[in-house]
């Protein structure tokens, strides 16, 4: 009997009330209250979270990431856009002066005045979930809550309980969007109290469509924030979706994210996450190859320093024959930073001719840096090619000396080697402007240290 269900063992219901109590003050204020299925979804989420609470390290998939610190803070849910944050420049992968489609969310709520949905080709809908409840009830009702299941994941349950806003993108069958669609998430919070928000992203790429989505997660101010993201991504038959994300929230931010994707026949889901920020982050990506000949690339880079903690947890589920999956992760860990990589590949009995490849390499820059890596292959078919590799190492002394012997100072030499190490992951970014922009973020990170 096969199951991808995570055990609810290792949950702590006593942590639930602190998170759920403020919900009653908010509930009437949540958008889409007239939709009965939405009320049900929220209620189910609430009940589920009340029953299990936050995952603890006794939960197998949370063994290396402890959410204890969250329970020490009284988070207050962000209310409808009350932030007065001002921005001079919002992050973008576009070259200067260029504009393009962009949705901006501050503390989880849509900010129309900062967003732009002009210049989108016909057949592309890009709007906020709060607005979509009214205008696209059917589309939302058909997809929301179908991939990210609250039974398995307490944080998805919590997200559902507070379900209010987030980006919605639908690309109609056969439509290709050339310019990247940017989603900017700003964690602003408040200096008075810790702030939490639970954005929900919905992406529907219909058959034969093609789109590039770039998420920017940034922070401003000094307030403590908890962003608990859930994204549901539907990649239709023969469709290709590039889904990039750069997370560089502040050192007082908690960033939790679960992305659940399903890929139909001949479709391709390409996910890349660059983690630079946040005090604690967890990126959980689940990609299910639900049709034959489907492909998925799930890769990323994580740069961890100070006392940061960054968790990457992936699940590739080969449910049908002839699927291809590829994962390339590179991590750089300094100071007392700690990183976690858990990568699971499941090959179902009928998924013959599966080709799965997973790689995670970590570079430890200090004696106190730490990585916990757990690759896991669960193969139930016999005609498959699957490989995984996990390594942790230090900078190559011989290479460092070689560079220094040519007059390159130690910090620059280290930067060159770290950059080169990450290069293998960065090359996985197929879209050049995105690769360049993310590369610049990496360079910035290396500069900061000097």
């Amino acid at each position: 009997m096969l199951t991808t269900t995570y055990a609810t063992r290792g949950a702590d219901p006593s942590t639930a009330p602190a998170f759920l109590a403020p919900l009653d003050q908010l509930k009437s204020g949540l958008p889409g209250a007239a939709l009965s299925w939405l009320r049900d979804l929220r209620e189910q989420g609430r009940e589920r979270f009340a029953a299990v609470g936050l995952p603890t390290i006794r939960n197998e998939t949370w063994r290396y990431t402890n959410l204890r610190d969250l329970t020490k803070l009284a988070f207050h849910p962000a209310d409808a856009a009350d932030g007065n944050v001002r921005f001079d420049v919002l992050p973008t992968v576009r070259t200067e002066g260029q504009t393009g489609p962009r949705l901006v969310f501050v503390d989880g709520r849509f900010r129309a005045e900062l967003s732009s949905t002009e210049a989108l080709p016909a057949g592309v809908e890009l709007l906020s979930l709060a607005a979509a409840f009214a205008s696209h009830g059917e589309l939302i009702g058909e997809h929301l809550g179908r991939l990210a299941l609250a039974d398995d994941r307490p944080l998805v349950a919590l997200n559902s309980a507070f379900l209010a806003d987030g980006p919605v993108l639908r690309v109609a069958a056969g439509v290709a969007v050339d310019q990247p669609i940017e989603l900017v998430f700003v964690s602003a919070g408040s200096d008075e109290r810790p702030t939490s928000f639970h954005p929900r992203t919905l992406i529907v790429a219909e058959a034969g469509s093609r789109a590039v989505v770039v998420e920017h997660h940034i922070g401003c101010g000094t307030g403590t924030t908890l962003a608990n993201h859930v994204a549901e991504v539907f990649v239709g038959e023969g469709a290709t979706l590039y889904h990039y994300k750069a997370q560089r929230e502040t050192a007082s931010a908690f960033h939790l994210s679960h992305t659940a994707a399903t890929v139909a026949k001949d479709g391709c889901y390409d996910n890349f996450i660059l983690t630079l920020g946040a005090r604690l982050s967890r990126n959980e990506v689940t990609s299910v190859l639900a049709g034959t000949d489907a492909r998925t690339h799930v890769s990323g880079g994580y740069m961890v320093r100070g006392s940061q903690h960054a968790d990457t947890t992936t699940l590739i589920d080969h449910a049908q024959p002839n699927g291809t999956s590829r994962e390339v992760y590179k991590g750089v860990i300094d100071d007392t930073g700690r990183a976690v990589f858990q990568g699971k590949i499941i090959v179902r009995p009928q998924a013959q001719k599966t080709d799965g490849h997973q790689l995670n390499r970590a570079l430890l820059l200090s004696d106190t840096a730490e990585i916990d890596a757990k690759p896991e292959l669960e193969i139930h078919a016999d005609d498959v090619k699957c490989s995984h590799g996990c390594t942790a190492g230090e900078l190559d002394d011989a290479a460092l000396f070689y560079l220094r012997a040519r007059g390159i100072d130690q910090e620059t030499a280290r930067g060159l080697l770290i950059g080169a190490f990450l290069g293998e992951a960065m090359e996985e970014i197929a879209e050049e402007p995105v690769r360049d922009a993310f590369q610049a973020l990496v360079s910035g990170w290396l500069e900061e240290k000097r």
Partner: protein
Amino acid sequence: MIEIKNLHAKVDGKDILKGVDLTIRPGEVHAIMGPNGAGKSTLSYVLAGREGYEVTEGSVTYYGKDLLALEPEQRAAEGVFLAFQYPVEIPGVANTTFLKTAINAMRKHRGEKELDAMQFLKLIREKTKALGMSDEMLKRAVNVGFSGGEKKRNETLQMAVLEPKFAILDETDSGLDIDALKIVAEGVNALRSPERSMLVITHYQRLLDYIVPDHVHVLAAGRVVKSGGKELALELEKNGYRDFGVNEAA
């Protein structure tokens, strides 16, 4: 002037250099020959400042400065250059990026303006052509997938663009075919000048036909056991190192 006095060094707790004395004046080319394991590369690493090579006694004075007190990059900036016996492969760092970073680090140290992309390209094209190297080798990662001879050419290229004051060539001739040997030797000779000195480590007299040394030394068991003129190299070629109590066949 470079003065090496009574230099003792340890690697991994093992005494390798046991009192090396050597004085190299500006403009001079000194050759060091000696059996495998004598400590020739160890001497070159100690001079270049590699970590893990512990100097336990003695001194190295480089144009009045205590060379051993400097970091490797400071030594390079002061004009010390080591052409490695085994050049290091650096995956992911393009040869051009490496060369440009190195050149500009040096220029910065000398108070010169950094080269922009165009100036750099012009310089590097000129030098690679002279050394019979392809543009393609510049695009590749540093030494990765280079043949033995290509690696040695790459070392020579670096020397040519960095224009050191004191170059140590550790078996730069090994792995080179006859034509490449000539090309590399020409590259080295082009750098010879009254201000520059060189320490050429080699096993073969043949190289010294091209790069004619002022002095030849025999390093055996961590010490300079004999010094002479260029004719010493010919003698060694004929008789091996048995006169120095070393069994060459070992």
